[in-house]
C-alpha cells in the first residue's frame, strides 16, 4: 500500500493552479525585489507554560517547562537556517528501579524479569543522585526494587535521571501516545484450499520458509485455517498444498519478504555496542495488516535512528517501527496539567533566553 501511495506523490501544481508557470515567475520576481539584506528576526515566545514543582523534603525549586510551547518561532515563521543548539529534551519512562551491587539506585529500562525480586535483562542505568531512603514505596527485598516513572535528559547516548515518581502519582508524566501493536489474524482468503499432503504445520512452515518471497505464516483465530503470505504468492506457493493436510490460504500482505527484514534485524543486533546496547528487544511482526520490523530502544534520539536506518537499509526502513522506552512528554495533545505533587527530583532550574539568536534552532 505505501509503495503505491508514494507513486501518487504530486509533482505538478498546475493540476490545481491555473497558469502556474507564469505565476511562479511572478512570485520569483516579487521575492527578489524584497529587501535582500539578512535581517535579525523578531522573536517571540508562544505561550511559555511553566509549572513550579517543589522538591520533596528540600528547599530547592525546580522549573519544569512545557517544551513544545517554548520553542521560539521567529516572527517571519522561518526556522533557523543553519541549525544550532537545542535545549535538552526531557522524556519519561515507566521503569523498574533495582538496587545495584553497591546499594545504589539503578534503572531497568525495557526488559524486566517477572520473578521476585525482578531482574533486569540489560545493564542498569545508574540513578546516582538518588538513594533508596527517598523511594519509600520500594519493596524491602534483597535486592530492593520499585516500579516507578522517571524523567531524564540525555547525556550523549545515556539518559540521566532527573525525577522519580511513584507510578500512581497523578503528576507523573504519562505517555501521550502509547504504542499498541495492531494485528489481524483473520484468514487471508475467503475460501481456503484443502491440502492434499500429509505434513503437519511444521512441515508447512519449513516448506514455506524455503520459498522465495516468504512473508509470514499464521493460524487464523478459528484455529481452522493456516495462512501463508508471500510477496508473489502465485509464483512461490503453488506446491504448498501438496505438503500440508489442512485448510490453506495463500496470499500476500503489505511489506517485503521476511528474510529481508530478518537480515536487517541481525545487522542491528550484530552492530557495535554503542548501537546494540541501546536495543531492548527486536522482532519481525506480521499479520494480515502487514509485516514490519520492530525495535524497542532506550531512547530514539536522532543519532541512533540514523545508525539504525543505515544498518537496516532504505527498503526495510520503511517497514521498521522504532519504539522508544523513554517517551516524549512534550507531545501531549491536552494542555491540562495535573496538580504537581512531590516527585523526587534532581532537576536543574533552566533559564531560557527570551530573545535567542536567529541561529538557535527553532
Amino acid at each position, binding site marked *: *500500500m*505505501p509503495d*503505491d*501511495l508514494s*507513486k*501518487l*506523490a*504530486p*509533482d*505538478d*501544481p498546475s*493540476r*490545481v*493552479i491555473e497558469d*502556474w508557470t507564469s505565476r*511562479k515567475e511572478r*512570485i*520569483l520576481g*516579487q*521575492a*527578489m525585489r*524584497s*529587501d*535582500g*539584506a*539578512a*535581517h535579525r528576526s523578531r522573536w517571540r515566545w508562544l505561550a511559555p507554560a511553566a509549572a513550579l514543582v517543589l522538591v520533596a523534603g528540600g528547599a530547592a525549586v525546580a522549573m519544569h517547562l512545557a517544551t*513544545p510551547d517554548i*520553542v521560539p*518561532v521567529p516572527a*517571519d*515563521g*522561518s*526556522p533557523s*537556517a*543553519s*541549525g544550532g543548539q537545542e535545549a535538552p*529534551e526531557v*522524556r519519561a519512562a515507566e521503569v523498574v528501579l533495582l538496587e545495584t551491587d553497591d546499594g545504589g539506585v539503578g534503572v531497568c529500562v525495557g526488559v524486566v524479569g517477572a520473578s521476585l525480586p525482578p531482574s533486569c535483562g540489560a545493564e542498569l542505568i545508574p540513578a546516582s543522585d538518588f538513594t533508596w531512603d527517598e523511594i519509600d514505596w520500594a519493596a524491602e527485598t534483597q535486592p530492593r526494587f520499585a516500579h516507578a516513572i522517571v524523567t531524564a535528559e540525555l547525556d550523549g547516548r545515556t539518559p540521566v535521571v532527573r525525577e522519580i515518581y511513584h507510578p500512581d502519582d497523578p503528576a507523573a508524566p504519562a505517555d501521550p*501516545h502509547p*504504542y499498541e501493536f*495492531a494485528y*489481524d489474524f*483473520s*484468514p487471508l482468503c475467503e475460501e481456503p484450499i484443502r491440502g492434499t499432503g500429509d505434513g503437519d504445520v511444521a512441515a508447512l512452515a519449513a516448506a514455506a520458509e524455503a520459498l522465495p518471497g516468504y512473508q509470514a505464516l499464521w493460524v487464523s483465530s478459528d484455529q481452522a485455517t493456516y495462512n501463508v503470505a508471500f510477496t508473489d504468492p502465485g509464483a512461490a506457493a503453488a506446491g504448498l498444498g501438496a505438503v500440508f493436510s489442512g485448510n490453506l490460504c495463500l496470499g500476500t500482505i503489505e511489506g517485503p519478504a521476511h528474510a529481508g527484514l530478518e537480515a536487517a534485524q541481525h545487522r542491528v543486533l550484530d552492530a557495535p555496542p554503542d548501537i546494540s546496547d541501546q536495543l531492548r528487544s527486536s522482532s519481525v511482526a506480521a499479520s*494480515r495488516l*502487514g509485516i514490519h520490523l520492530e525495535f524497542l530502544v532506550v531512547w*530514539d*534520539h*536522532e543519532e541512533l*535512528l*540514523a545508525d539504525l536506518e543505515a544498518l537496516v537499509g532504505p527498503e526495510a526502513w520503511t517497514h521498521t*517501527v522504532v*519504539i522508544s522506552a523513554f*517517551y*516524549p512528554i*512534550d*507531545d501531549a495533545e491536552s494542555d491540562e496539567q495535573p496538580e504537581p505533587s512531590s516527585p523526587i527530583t534532581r532537576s536543574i532550574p533552566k533559564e531560557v533566553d527570551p530573545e535567542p539568536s*536567529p*541561529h538557535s534552532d527553532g
Partner: protein
Amino acid sequence: MEARQERFTLLYQQCVDRVMIYCLRHLDAGAAEDVVSETFTIAWRRLDELREHPLPWLLTTAHNLIRNNYRSRASQRSIAQRMTQLTQLAAEPAEVTASRRHDLLTALGALADADREALLLTAWDGLSSAEAARLLGCSPGALRVRIHRARRTMAEALHPSAAERSGHA
C-alpha cells in the same frame, strides 16, 4: 549580487513546486500562493544562511506561516474540499489503476490530520523522519508512531472485510 540572484533562482526552480504542493495540501489555491510567496521572500532575505539542501527549511517556514497566519483559512476548509484538492493534485501513474488510486486517496483522507501529515511528509515530500519531526515539532519517535498508525489504519481501510471479521474495524 548577480551570483546571489543566480543561486536563489536555482534554489527557487528546484523547490517551488514542492513548496506549492505542500501548501495546497493545507490551503486553497489563493492562500497557498500567498504562503509560497512569503516563504520565498524570507528565503531570499536569508539566502546566505541556507544550507545546500533547503527543502526541509522551506517547508518548515511554510508550515510556520500557515500555523501563525493562515490557521483559520486552513481550518475552514471542509474535508470534502481538502479531498477534492488532494485528488486533483495526486499523480496518476500508469502502474496504479484508477480504482486503486481512488481507494488509496479515500483511505488517506480518512486518516487523522496529524497521522496523514506525518505520512505524507515522508512519502510525498521526501523528508527524512528527523526532518519531518522537526517540521512538526515532535520527536522522531512520535513521528514514527504516527506514520505507523497511519499505515496501519490505511491497511485496515483497504481490507475492510478482514478488519470486520477480526473485530479491528
